[in-house]
């Protein structure tokens, strides 16, 4: 038997692509959570509201200092004991989203800190309401600056989705593993799975790099 069987490879491709759709769905939904929640964290931290600030700080530290896998297991196996049962898909989205939110919040923070003090002072001089200061002046300047860094986190997230096979999410690598265990042929499924990641990640990181260059020249 050859090391690489093209017929088998084409046979399993539709199943793998179908699983890839799940991977992409989790990535995109998880990104929405990570990008929005990270922004909320960053702004709340900046407001320095007593107690809430310390709670947020502790939460971010705990999430960053523990493995994503433990967090996912916690959401999937421990939360049901407290009456909260989430599907594996939802745990994937929430787990990845919250985990990465703690990283994106740092990215946003850096972007916000880079806004010159004079911009805040001009807002005060115009008596702008606080919400408008954020939505009209600070964030429209801070967020474009950090888009490349945020993009890199979305790509990392995409590559972390296979971790969810631990709770039975049928994403690409899990699908490849199952196909392999049916036929005892592992070369094709894992190779294709890897290639699929490469085919999406590489262009995505090229795009991020272009964004970065545009920021530098702009």
């Amino acid at each position, binding site marked *: 038997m050859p090391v690489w069987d093209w017929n088998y490879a084409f046979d399993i491709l539709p199943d793998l692509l179908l699983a890839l759709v799940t991977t992409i769905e989790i990535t995109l939904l998880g990104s929405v959570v990570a990008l929005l929640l990270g922004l909320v964290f960053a702004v709340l931290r900046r407001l320095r509201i007593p107690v809430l600030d310390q709670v947020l700080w502790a939460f971010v530290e705990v999430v960053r200092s523990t493995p994503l896998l433990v967090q996912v297991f916690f959401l999937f196996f421990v939360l049901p004991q407290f009456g909260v049962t989430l599907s594996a898909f939802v745990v994937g989205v929430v787990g990845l989203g919250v985990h990465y939110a703690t990283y994106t919040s740092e990215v946003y923070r850096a972007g916000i800190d880079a806004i010159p003090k004079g911009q805040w002072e001009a807002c005060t001089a115009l008596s702008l309401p606080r919400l408008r200061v954020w939505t*009209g002046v600070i964030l429209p300047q801070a967020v474009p600056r950090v888009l490349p860094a945020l993009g890199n986190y979305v790509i990392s997230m995409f590559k972390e989705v296979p971790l969810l096979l631990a709770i039975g999410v049928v994403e690409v690598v899990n699908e490849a593993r199952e196909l392999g265990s049916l036929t005892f042929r592992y070369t094709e499924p894992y190779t294709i799975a890897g290639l699929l990641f490469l085919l999406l990640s590489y262009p995505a990181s090229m795009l991020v790099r272009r964004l970065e260059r545009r920021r530098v020249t702009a």
Partner: protein
Amino acid sequence: MSPPDTSEPMIVFDGVEKRFGSNVVLKDLSFTVAPGEHVTLIGPSGSGKTTILRLLMTLEQCNEGTISVGGRYLSHEERGGKLGPPREKYLRDVRKHIGMVFQQFNLFPNMTVRGNLCEGPTRVLGLSKDEANARAEELLDLVGLKEKIDAHPTQLSGGQQQRVAIARALAMRPDVLLLDEVTSALDPELVAGVLKLLRDIGDTTDITILCVTHEMGFARDFSHRVMMFDGGRVLEDAPPEKLFTEPDHQRTKDFLQAVLAH
């Protein structure tokens, strides 16, 4: 220029002290400014001139004493006859009547010139888009930049940016205008245009203007009063004709000599 009305002061500093850590920037400072008066603050760097403007804009809070503008406290909030720390909402209301132009312009780079001028009037004063727009066009005409209304700040020269910043402050129809070294960051050839604009504004409006500047020629013909600061205190407070020609203090003489020599 007719001397301004001196009945009810527009600005009152009463026993104000401002410290940054252990560094006392302003000491027991008391003075008043009448409505429509133009006052220029001069003095060596670190003498606390800019701090006075920043206190008035509520960018800083004073440690002792009280500050009021138009009869309302800026440093405190009156509640049930007692003075307490001011709340953000109260401050926003009081400082609506105060405008400031900064050394570094501080235009919003994410907005066009029009956006910069309409932001305050629509978001704070509640003007409609059309009203704010009309006001923006009128003010840009005044500052000679009508054709730049849809430009972005980054496409403008420093002098143009500063004129837009002045227009932005005026769009709020302030009672008090604070000018913080507004020509210091400009290339020398752009300074005259901005100063001319400020003279026009001084001549045609009754806005109370407080100005920190190193342009002594401008200070002399723009101000009704010049206050010389040194070490956080008012060393001398006199009409420009007197202060620039026969100051009472040797320290003032030395300072003027040093500034005019360069």
